[in-house]
């Protein structure tokens, strides 16, 4: 038998030169023992629960968050959440992430600008609480391969850096990259209109020269700075009333997994979603009686 012969030959050679490396006795995979629960995206459930403990009173008693249409967010499978972005240090991202985790028990991964990662401490903390660099491949993996909820603000830094007089006027929705990712991953886009973030940290004016020197995308002087001083004012939001409205999910009738999608179709869909959020915002603002009481 030829196979038997080879085995004998191999073992003879192995006896001649005792080498452990290539054929260890146990062919099982060694997984190792992890000491933390940080996942491949940098998210740690332990850190999340710490943030939940601090953030929950803030969510309930400070911002007094109210959701409408929460049932439209899928309870299983991937979905791309798209919202308007506002406030010098945007409070909408943590509110949406915490809210969905609290109400639906699902983790949300928030896509953020590359800039976050270059900044010491901030980048690491953001990553531990569920922030992910907004790379198309990251979004695709989360949505398609892992079926997670992903939150994205297509306005990017243009949203939070706008002045207070432009409040609730949506900026350009990037180049529509988020539509292309949702199409490729074959997941629905769920638009969310957020009212309240604009007033929680309104920008009075910006210091572009200083921002450039420090190496940040924008450096705002906010109402919070005037009222609370430079340090507390940089971290504490004003207690504006938060209202979030989840709009009907949008599914695209295009095959998933394609390399490229029609650019005109992408831009059209992006503009459509932008308009829907904008219209919803106008409607919510028309009904709002007070910034602080809702």
């Amino acid at each position: 038998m030829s196979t038997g012969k080879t085995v004998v030959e191999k073992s003879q050679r192995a006896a001649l030169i005792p080498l452990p490396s290539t054929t260890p006795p146990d062919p099982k995979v060694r997984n190792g023992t992890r000491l933390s629960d940080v996942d491949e995206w940098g998210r740690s459930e332990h850190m999340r629960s710490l943030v939940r403990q601090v953030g929950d009173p803030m969510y309930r008693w400070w911002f007094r968050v109210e959701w409408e249409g929460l049932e439209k967010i899928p309870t299983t499978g991937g979905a791309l959440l798209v919202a308007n972005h506002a406030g010098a240090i945007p409070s909408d991202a943590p509110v949406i992430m915490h809210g969905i985790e609290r109400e639906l028990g699902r983790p949300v991964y928030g896509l953020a600008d590359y800039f976050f990662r270059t900044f010491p401490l901030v980048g690491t903390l953001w990553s531990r609480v569920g922030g992910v660099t907004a790379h198309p491949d990251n979004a695709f993996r989360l949505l398609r391969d892992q079926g997670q909820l992903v939150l994205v603000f297509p306005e990017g830094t243009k949203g939070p850096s706008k002045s207070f007089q432009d409040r609730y006027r949506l900026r350009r929705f990037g180049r529509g990259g988020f539509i292309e990712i949702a199409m490729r991953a074959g997941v629905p886009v769920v638009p969310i209109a957020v009212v309240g973030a604009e007033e929680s940290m309104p920008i009075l004016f910006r210091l572009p020269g200083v921002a450039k020197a420090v190496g940040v995308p924008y450096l705002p002087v906010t109402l919070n700075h005037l009222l609370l001083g430079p340090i507390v004012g940089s971290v504490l939001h004003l207690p504006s009333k938060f209202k979030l409205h989840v709009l009907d999910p949008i599914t695209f009738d295009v095959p998933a997994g394609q390399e490229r999608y029609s650019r005109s179709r992408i831009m059209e869909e992006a503009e459509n979603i932008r308009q829907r959020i904008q219209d919803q915002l106008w409607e919510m603002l028309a009904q709002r009686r007070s910034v602080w009481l809702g």
Partner: protein
Amino acid sequence: MGRRVLITGLDTFWGGRMAQALESNPDIDVLVGLGTSEPKVQLERTEFVRTDQVYSVLTRLVRATQVDTIVHLFLVTDSTQMSRRKLHEVNVIGSMNLFAACGSAGSSIRHVIVKSSSLVYGSSAYDPTWFREEMPHSRPARNYVERSLIEVETFVRDFAEDNPHTLVTVLRFANVLGTDIATPMTFNLSRPLVPSIAGFDPLVQFVEEDDVIRSLEFVTRNEVPGLYNVAGDGRIPWSEVAAMCDRKLLGLPPFATRAAAAGLVRLGLIMFPPEMDSLLRFGRGVDTRRIKEAGFNFRYTTAGAVESFVQALRLRRTVGTSEPHYQYESDVESFFRHSPAVIRPSDR
């Protein structure tokens, strides 16, 4: 007729290991190893040829031995090993000559395997969490090891294009940890204070040294062409790696990091090559689905590789260094095999 294999860098850690792994393959008839110095491991049937580092004799050697497979392992991925100029000679000029020899008219070469590194992806804030093989580096390479490896890979691509009938395999390995390997990474993880950059806790990925050899052996044996990432599953934070090694983190300032590290490097407390600066800020992850689909099974995950390293470290601390000691078995075996004093069954 069996295969005839040529290995470069026989005197390096990987060259020796790979030769040992291939020696036990009965399909390989001839095994030739090139090196600038004597091989450091015990080899049974590999023939050693001393050459200079730029392989000026290679064309003649290939023609004379009619080798069909070249395993190119002599690529330096650690900038502390040699000067910038020498590294350029070894990586860029060496590979250039190697591919020139492989591609010469009437060449007998059927398969070329190159041991590259995931350094070609670089490490920056703009990176995806997982690099796939076809993704380019996000930002232009900022240190010379990365640049030289990227240049080597362009030679590989050109060679593959010019020689469509030759199989070309490139394996890009993540940072290696294991029982025996010594790199700046293992140096740092075996000292009491592990360097880190304050405010950054990057997710890193490792591959165990056995998996390195096994994957190289896998693509050589099965003649698998293509470009593959090779790394253990999962990414773990640098702080956790240090904790697994029972080490404390030493936070270097996030600004002027290399200047701050220079003093500690001079004192011999840490090793901090430029490629480690960006790695300890942003980490790096590579997608290994492609090599798994090709049929390769990893024995270690990233955490498993760290564990393997830690256990070897603990063992070394207790029993001292595991220098290759006198192995009477091999001498006795060699006596049984070759001595005229032994009466063999075939002689009777």
